[in-house]
Structure formats: C-alpha cells, structure tokens
C-alpha cells in the first residue's frame, strides 16, 4: 500500500496531464487498488454497508468493554418489567442481566467467529486451489474430485455433527470456527484454481519462470496476490454465512451455550418469553440481519469495484 500512496501523490503533480492513452481519465496514473477504491466509494449501497459494518464492529469492541461484566452478571434487583434506562437501554432479562450488553457481547462472539472462520476458509481454499491450479493434470483432477466430495456433503448438517461430536474437548467458539472452516473452503478453492489456470499462461508468470524462480516463489509472490480478488469478495460474503451458521448452531443448543452470550442462544432464551416479552426475539434477530446486510452490501460492492471491465462513470 505504501507504493500506491507515493504514486497517488505523484499523480497530483504536473505529470498527470499526459493523455496519450485512449482512456480519458482525470487522474492519469492510478494503481489498480486506487481505481477499486474510487469505484467502491461511488457505490452508495457499498458505502452504506461499510459504514454499517464499521458501526457493528465498533459496537462489538467498545460496548462489551464499557459494560464490563454486565453481560453475564445476574441480579435480583433488576427485572424484565423494569422501565428502560440509560444503563440498560433494552432492559433486563429473566436473570436480571443487562440485555444491551449481552447483545453486544453476542455480536462480538458472532463477528469473531465470522472473521476467523472466513480466515480459515480463505487459507485452506487458497492453498488447495493454488496447488491444484498450478500443478494441473492428474493432480488437479484428483484435487477437484475431493472438492466435489466435500461439496456433496450436506453442509449445515456436517457442521452440526462436528460441533456436537467434538464439542466437549475444545472451547465452543473454536469448534464452531474449525467446523465452518474445514467444511466451507471449497468455493474459495475453486475460485483460486480458476484464477491460477488463467494466470499460469500469462506473461509475467512465464517471465518469472524463465528467470529461474522456484515454484513456491512463483505461487506465493507472483500468482497468489493476483488471484485474490474473487476470494476477497467470497470471503466478505462468507462472513454473513458464518455468522448465521453460528447463530443457528447456538439456537439449536449446540454452539455457544448460556451463560456465554450469542445471538443464537439469546433467541432460544427469548422463546420462553414469547408472550410476556415479545421484543426479546427482535433484538438478536435484527442484529443478525444487520450483520448479514452489511457483509453482503460490502461484498457486492467489492465485486463490482474489483471488476476492471466496469467503467468509473457507471
């Protein structure tokens, strides 16, 4: 990123008047990522998504810190029927716990799981896809059949099995991250492989090969950075899936369990208060929808911005 900054400052200077190319662009010298950023920031939905995501991340970091142990501290003096106050904007639950801080703690759990699950998905997917695409031939064929097999397994059910069966040994958050990570990497692997098949024949890879660079250097230094754009989009969209999967697992009673906070287990708890506290199912539900919307707006915006065929004027 440092180099792109220096190019941008150079672009503001007198050299930027050169217009010998076909494109008529106000700023002549721009790196790919600068173009991506400009295209992204011109997309209203994408910017709304980014602001929303920033707000959610901020809430998930700051409020649990402000609240201290309020998210799990039970109390005999606070009741669900208490009027809402500045200390408890969403009131107290049946055990006298502060719902607002519980909600933000649950959001924190969701976002941590979403982030690390997607990280694992990206790591496995990129490694697998790049080896498969680079090697080609029989190796590629066998590796893609492995992808077919994993894709054919019923996804949510497999995750449920893993979480339920290995749940006792490892902390629940880690189990969920691992389960989502090791089942969800196939899409990333396919995307990276497709990019690698295309890049393998490109001039800069051939040049690196002619210079005598080793396979691992060509893959890691030259090809992976060029192949990451579609993976970045898939990873952003994948956060939404991971967060919903975690909520579903916890809702069914397999993931994060009470007293730990999760958007899913808050929904389970709210079920018992359907009649007296109907709003309780809306707090975690709306939070979940906001996370999903933010991730998909940013993901869709990135997809449009990363597409070099898209004109800036559009």
């Amino acid at each position, binding site marked *: 990123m440092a180099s792109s900054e220096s190019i941008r400052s150079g672009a503001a200077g007198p050299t930027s008047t050169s217009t010998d190319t076909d494109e008529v662009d106000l700023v002549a010298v721009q790196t790919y990522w600068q173009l991506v950023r400009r295209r992204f920031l011109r997309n209203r939905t994408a910017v709304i998504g980014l602001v929303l995501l920033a707000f959610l991340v901020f809430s998930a970091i700051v409020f649990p810190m402000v609240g201290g142990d309020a998210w799990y501290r039970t109390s005999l003096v606070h009741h669900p029927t208490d009027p809402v106050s500045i200390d408890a904007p969403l009131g107290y639950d049946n055990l006298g716990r502060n719902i607002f801080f519980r909600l933000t703690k649950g959001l924190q759990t969701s976002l941590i799981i979403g982030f690390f699950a997607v990280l694992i998905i990206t790591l496995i997917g990129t490694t697998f896809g790049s080896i498969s695409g680079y090697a080609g031939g029989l190796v590629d064929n066998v590796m893609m*059949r*492995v992808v*077919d*097999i*994993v*894709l*054919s*397994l*019923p*996804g*949510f*059910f*497999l995750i*449920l*099995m*893993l979480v*339920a*069966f*290995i749940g*006792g*040994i490892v902390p629940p958050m880690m189990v969920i991250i691992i389960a989502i990570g090791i089942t969800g990497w196939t899409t990333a692997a396919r995307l990276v492989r497709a990019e690698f098949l295309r890049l393998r024949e490109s001039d800069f890879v051939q040049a690196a090969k002619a210079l005598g660079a080793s396979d691992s250097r060509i893959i890691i230094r030259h090809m992976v950075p060029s192949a990451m754009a579609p993976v970045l989009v898939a990873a952003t969209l994948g956060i*939404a899936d991971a967060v*919903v999967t975690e*909520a*579903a697992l916890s*809702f*069914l*009673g*397999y993931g994060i369990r009470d007293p730990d906070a999760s958007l899913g287990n808050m*929904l389970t708890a*709210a*079920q018992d208060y*359907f*009649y007296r506290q*109907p709003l309780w*199912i*809306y707090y*975690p*539900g709306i939070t*979940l*929808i906001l996370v*999903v*919307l933010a991730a*998909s707006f940013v993901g869709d915006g990135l997809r449009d911005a990363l597409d070099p065929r898209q004109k800036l004027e559009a």
Partner: protein
Amino acid sequence: MVTYIVRRLIQAIPIVIGISVISFAIVYLTPGSPIDKFRTGRVSPQTIANLIRVYGLDQPLPVQFVNWFTHFWSFPFNSTAWGYSFTDGLPVRDKIFGRAPSTLLLMGTSLVVSMLLAIPIGILQAVKQYSWADRIITTFETIGYAMPTFWLGLILKQFFSVQLKWLPLYGQNTLGKQGDIPDMIAHLILPVSTLAVVSVAGWSRYMRASMLEVLRQDYVRTARAKGLGPARVIGRHALRNALIPIVTLLGLTIPTLLSGAAITETVFSWPGLGWLGVQAVGDRDYPVVLAVTMIGGMMVILGNLLADVLYGVVDPRIHY
C-alpha cells in the same frame, strides 16, 4: 441422453465412496464409542467384550467400513441395512422412510408456493424495471434474503400462534387428529411461509434478471413489431426462455429439501428428516446420523444430475 445419464452415474461412484468415507470417519473417529452407554458398572466386562465382538467393533477400521458400506446398499431388500436406531431400537431404514413423506410434503408445498409467487413477481419487476414497485420489491427481497430462517420462523410463531392464536404453534397434527387434512394444512401454513419468504426473495431476483436478459433479445422486439399484445409477448415469447435458468436452478435446490429444512423443521417440530437428523446428532444416534448424511450427499449428486438433464430438456439447443 440415456448414455449421458449412465456416464454421469458412473462418474458419481467415486464421489459416493468419498462421501461414505468422510461420514464414516467423522462418526467413528470422534471421541466416544457406541458401547459407552453400557459401561455403567452394572454390565460385566465380559458382556461388554461380547458386545464389542458382536458389533464387530474389534475389527480393523477399514474392515468395519467395507462391512458397513456393502451392507448399506442392500437397503431395498433388507430393513436392517442401515442398522438399528440407538434411541428406540427401530430399524433406521424404516425410521427414515417413515419421516420422508413429511419432509417431501413440507418442501414440495413451499417449493410450489414460492414458484407461484416468485415467477409473477420477477416478471413484474422486469417489465416495470426501475419503477417504484420494482424498487420496493427489491428492498423486500434484500431483507428477505438476509433473514435467517429460524428467526423468521420464531417471529411468525410469536405473532400468529402466541399473540393472535390463529395457527398451531408446532407439529404436523393436533394430538388425536392424525390424518385430518384441514388440521394438517393449518399446521403447514407457518413452516411453509417461513421457507417461502426466503426462497421467494432469491427466486424472484433470478427471475427478474433472467427476464430482463430475454426482453433485450431481438426476437422479443420482432414479436412486438409484429403487433402482438404485451401479454402474448411476455407470456408466450419471453417467459418460456426466461424460465430456462430457473428450471436448472430447481435441480440444484433439490438437496436443500433435506438440509435446508433441518432448521425450519426443528423450529416448528415438523416430524421430517431434517428434524430427525438434528435430534439424532444430539442423541449421538450414530446409525441415523450416518444414514441422514448419506442421503443428503446422494441428493446433492442426484440434484446436480437432474439440473443438467433438465437443462437439456428445456433447451433443445443442448445435446449430450
């Protein structure tokens, strides 16, 4: 066509074996043994050793796998092919086939309902592109698509069953009213609506995109130039081609008949395969878990095959 299907089925064999190996491995390599529940102190060590021998658990893992795998495929003739459930001792095959109609009823109904809604909505959006109706519907689609099914199910239950008391809260029939059709329809409404909201949101987007693509084609302009009315141009000329990608996607949704409904079935205690699978995982009912996973995998393979075959059927330009 027949040779194509046969070739695809042969290609599927290694995938089926792979699915079996993974499902088997997850169940057998996770901590805990099916015998553990007998280790209570009341059962003598000799009995436990006998049980281990009877169930073949002392044999090498590959042998156990081959035994299970070959046995598994005898299910059309043998009710014990998938073993006995750990929870109630019934043959797993009969349990699964007993639950399948409920899942098919739920998923079939919601598929039909969502198609009947999504196709007209998509057409409307495409024909009136960028109108206020299109914008409002698009907003609802975005929210509907982002909505987790289990949460939507809860909201509907809370509103229609708890607050208004219009519809039953869970199950397939009121106790003592098994087979009563109006009663079952009342029980179907909420789970079907839950599944339909999410799938209508997805399908109508596809329909809109597909219709927009077709409406740009020259032959549509020709049809209009001939003086045909909008109903005939859209309903007869454009719709048929716009449905091609939808039909293909239909095959790809077959697998979600099982796993996609697992959560909805659990929320509404709908006695289908998905709920059975979720319960079996909780009970560590390994034979049922294995059978459900295998069926899920098989449905993915068959769904993909169906999608490709349907594609050839609806689009005569494609030959196999």
